[in-house]
């Protein structure tokens, strides 16, 4: 296929600005999707994506398009997620493209991930087409949005295309702009094969399905493919494109985006950033490779039923096949038994993994309070990384502890500046920069990561009536006065409830945590004492009084079945309880560490 007839682009934006809806329109307009059969956000094909109305994974689709110039083009569209947890998905998608549609919601304006994704697109050297979406909304401010695109992003505002992805207004212009403004992919079909792996997933029948962008040469079934980073050679079994279903084709050639299968067993063997070449006629210089997605947040996952440990391992193995950002290693807890310490990109990622494990694999899980990864420098001068509070060495062996910091962008209307600064202060934020953008501000802060993973975003949204947006990137490790807060039930420490936090916050948190636990731990046959302690110093104490009565007094004319059903209902309620020593603790108790 002639390179001049190919266009490869991603759709990027802040969360919910309408990427997937625009993708729907593009599919319909090019005839890739029968509009009668179409559902909204058709590319969001995972159950969880559909339920939550968000995109989690990138989705690639190949569209045939007859342009106004009468020529047939092939457009390769990649829809990307907007949530900050999944920006890794965005950046690897961009590597397969020459252009990006940067969508901005006309009612919201430029937001934090708009800027973040704009920078990602710039770094990837892409041609950016600004698109102003949702112009059908009564509160749409097209001119204001144009101005922001010019002022904040420095793009030519006249280039922005106003559209309504919902109604289809302006979408034909978007297609023409793709043809005219985005350059065709570079490449030489006659050169040795050089293909970039930008994603992959595991299919139980075909093994690993690798998403590739062909930079040079051609690939077809039967070829010997060499994976240059690890030297492995595979025979290519199938090549094809996404329509969005997988459709085999004869050949993929320079400039094209598609997939190949080659009997690869593990996703880890064909990593993102890998260079695939012809084993018999290899290319000379491979791609530089790609950084792995790095987990930022860690938590213990334990099955409520001890016997489900192996099932949990199998389930994590399976999820990991398609989610390389998820890491896990086995660990044991005195309180919870055998489980796994898992690493996630953020809390949304963690919730999604937990939900999938419970739903798709029928597991009932306890998730311990999420923690960031600390660097502990010991008195002996060694550095150890700690992502599990219970692994923190005794205070006497620690020289100092460093915690991860992030640089964060907050976008908001000026009227919310005060509460935002207050929130930032409460979260140990350090102000870095302030930029006025008409009626809005862009504030840069440095935050300890631990302060923003849990409830920062929700609080930011609520103090700004939903108008503030937020994005962050890892910055550095910095020494910090953090301590370990322990929780004791009837005198016994519960390792899974320990948290590492800043000394200034320990007292308040300990109190809140003890109160929260009192509320969620049900009354038992005996009194339960809850203590929060730093080292041997108890800083808060609460008591769950013993239950006084639990009895079915009457029996209804021998209706034993009814009585048993009542008992079974009680028993159902106890299913999610974990026995810690003699104390029964509900699953929520572990989450309350997170929420208090």
């Amino acid at each position, binding site marked *: 296929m002639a390179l001049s007839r190919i266009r490869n682009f991603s759709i990027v934006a802040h969360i919910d600005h309408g990427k997937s809806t625009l993708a729907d329109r593009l599919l319909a307009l090019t005839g890739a999707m029968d509009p009668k059969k179409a559902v909204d956000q058709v590319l969001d094909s995972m159950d969880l994506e559909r339920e939550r109305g968000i995109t989690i994974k990138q989705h690639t689709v190949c569209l045939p398009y007859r342009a106004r110039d009468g020529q047939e083009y092939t457009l390769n569209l990649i829809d990307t997620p907007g949530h900050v947890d999944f920006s890794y998905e965005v950046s690897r998608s961009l590597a397969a493209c020459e252009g990006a549609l940067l969508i901005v919601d006309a009612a919201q304006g430029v937001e934090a991930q708009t800027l973040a994704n704009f920078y990602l697109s710039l770094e990837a050297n892409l041609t950016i087409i600004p698109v102003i979406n949702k112009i059908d909304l009564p509160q749409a401010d097209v001119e204001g949005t144009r101005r922001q695109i010019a002022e904040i992003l420095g793009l030519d505002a006249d280039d922005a295309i106003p559209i309504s992805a919902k109604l289809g207004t302006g979408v034909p212009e978007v297609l023409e702009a793709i043809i005219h403004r985005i350059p065709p992919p570079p490449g030489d079909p006659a050169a040795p094969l050089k293909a970039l792996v930008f994603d992959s997933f595991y299919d139980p029948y075909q093994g690993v399905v690798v998403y590739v962008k062909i930079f040079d040469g051609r690939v077809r079934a039967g070829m010997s493919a060499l994976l240059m980073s690890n030297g492995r050679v595979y025979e290519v079994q199938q090549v094809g494109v996404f329509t969005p279903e997988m459709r085999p084709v004869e050949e993929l050639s320079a400039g094209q985006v598609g997939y190949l299968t080659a009997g690869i067993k593990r996703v880890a063997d064909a990593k993102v950033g890998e260079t695939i070449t012809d084993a018999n006629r290899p290319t000379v210089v491979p791609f530089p490779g790609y950084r792995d997605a790095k987990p930022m947040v860690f938590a213990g996952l334990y099955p409520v039923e001890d016997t489900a440990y192996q099932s949990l391992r199998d389930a994590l193995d399976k999820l990991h096949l398609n989610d390389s950002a998820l890491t896990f290693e086995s660990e044991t807890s005195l309180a919870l038994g055998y489980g796994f310490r898992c690493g996630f990109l953020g809390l949304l990622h963690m919730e999604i993994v937990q939900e999938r494990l419970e739903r798709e694999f029928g597991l009932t899980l306890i998730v311990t309070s999420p923690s960031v990864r600390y660097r502990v420098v010991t008195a002996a001068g060694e550095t150890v990384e700690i992502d599990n509070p219970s692994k923190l060495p005794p205070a006497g062996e620690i020289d100092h502890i460093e915690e991860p910091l992030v640089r964060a962008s907050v976008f908001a209307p000026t009227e919310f500046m005060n509460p935002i600064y207050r929130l930032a202060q409460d979260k140990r934020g350090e102000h870095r920069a302030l930029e006025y953008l008409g009626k809005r501000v862009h504030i840069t802060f440095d935050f300890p990561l631990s302060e923003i993973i849990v409830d920062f975003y929700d609080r930011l949204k609520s103090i700004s009536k939903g108008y503030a947006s937020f994005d962050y990137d890892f910055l550095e490790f910095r020494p910090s006065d953090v301590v370990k807060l322990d929780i004791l039930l009837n005198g016994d420490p519960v390792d899974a409830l320990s948290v590492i936090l800043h000394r200034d916050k320990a007292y308040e948190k300990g109190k809140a945590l003890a109160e929260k636990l009192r509320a969620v731990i049900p009354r038992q046959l005996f009194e339960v004492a809850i203590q929060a302690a730093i080292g041997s110093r108890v800083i808060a104490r609460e008591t769950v009084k013993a239950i006084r009565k639990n009895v079915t007094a*009457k029996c209804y004319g021998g209706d034993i079945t009814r009585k048993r059903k009542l008992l079974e209902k009680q028993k159902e309620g106890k299913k999610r309880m974990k026995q810690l020593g003699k104390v029964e603790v509900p699953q929520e108790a572990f989450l309350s560490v997170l929420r208090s």
Partner: protein
Amino acid sequence: MTPLAWSPRQRGPLGLYLHIPFCRQRCHYCSFNTGPYRPAAMDRFLAALLREIDLVGEAEWAGDVAIGTVFFGGGTPSLLEADELETILDRLRKRLAVAPAAEVSVECNPESLSRDKAEGYRLAGVNRLSLGVQSLDDDLLARLGRLHSSQEAGRAFEAARAAGFDNVSVDLMYGLPDLDLARWERTVREILAWSPEHLSAYALTLDEGSRWAGEGVAGLADEETVTAQYWALARLAREAGYEHYEISNYARPGFRSRHNQVYWRAEEYLAFGPGACGFLGDVRYGNVKPVERYCALLEAGHLPLGSHEVLTPAQRTAEKVILGLRLSDGVPLAGLEDRRPLIDTWQSLGLLEVAGDRCRLTEAGFLLSDSLFVELLPAHS
């Protein structure tokens, strides 16, 4: 599937429960299967009940297996005239092997029990009355929706005695709205002064289907108060020489309710009347609940079976333990071998006692019994 196809495990005496599904007025706390009393409806029901007895009487075992206890419950069984009750009992004796020494009990409401009626019942073969007194506080009785005063309750008790009943039980309720501990103790003392042979006392529960559960009720007692009332009753009854032989039941020696013990020992019993529950072999069954439907089925010559479940051996074993632990006699330890840690915990908390080869709940354990029973349910039921 009908009870006729199921046969009793035991050849020994069965219990027999009859449900009389009418009341003059529904009490506000009541969720039982009962409807408004109308003479015509009662007549139709009685005809159907006799029909049901006839049908069950066709079972091949009907003539051989002794009936050891008969219990008329409701509803308000004392709405039955003595001759109506006699007709039912006669039919039972004709179709089934009712033992000559069977315990025959009737639940009575004070306002519908006259001395004449009591005498008629006794002549018909009833040998035990259970009187629904509930409270001796006239304000409370009115709030509960009862149709009698405390004075009428006393008179009804005397009527039972005068008619020659030497086995009378009294039903009481505690944990009632605005009932304080002192008033409850006075009530219990007064009742004990009547010297009934048997006493049942239930803490108020707001069961689904009752008026109070639907509309809510003010002044409900807190857990502390209900617990204190339980202990006051236990103490006063003990001092007066009663045995606390089941969670909610007290009796003078020799006067435990034989019928109720059939339930707690997981023995078998037959059921008659709408919504009545029975247990035969491995099967727990219940009749259809609406009176109209009950009658219509019998008029068409069908048994009025509504639902049934076949217990697995594990369920049967578990039920035997759970029900047995409601009794002060407890259960053999042998059935609890694999639950040793649980038993030890309960013992160490003073909720359970082990004596010889049996174990039983203490009075403190009775109060928390559901917490233990939940643990004793079979794993996957």
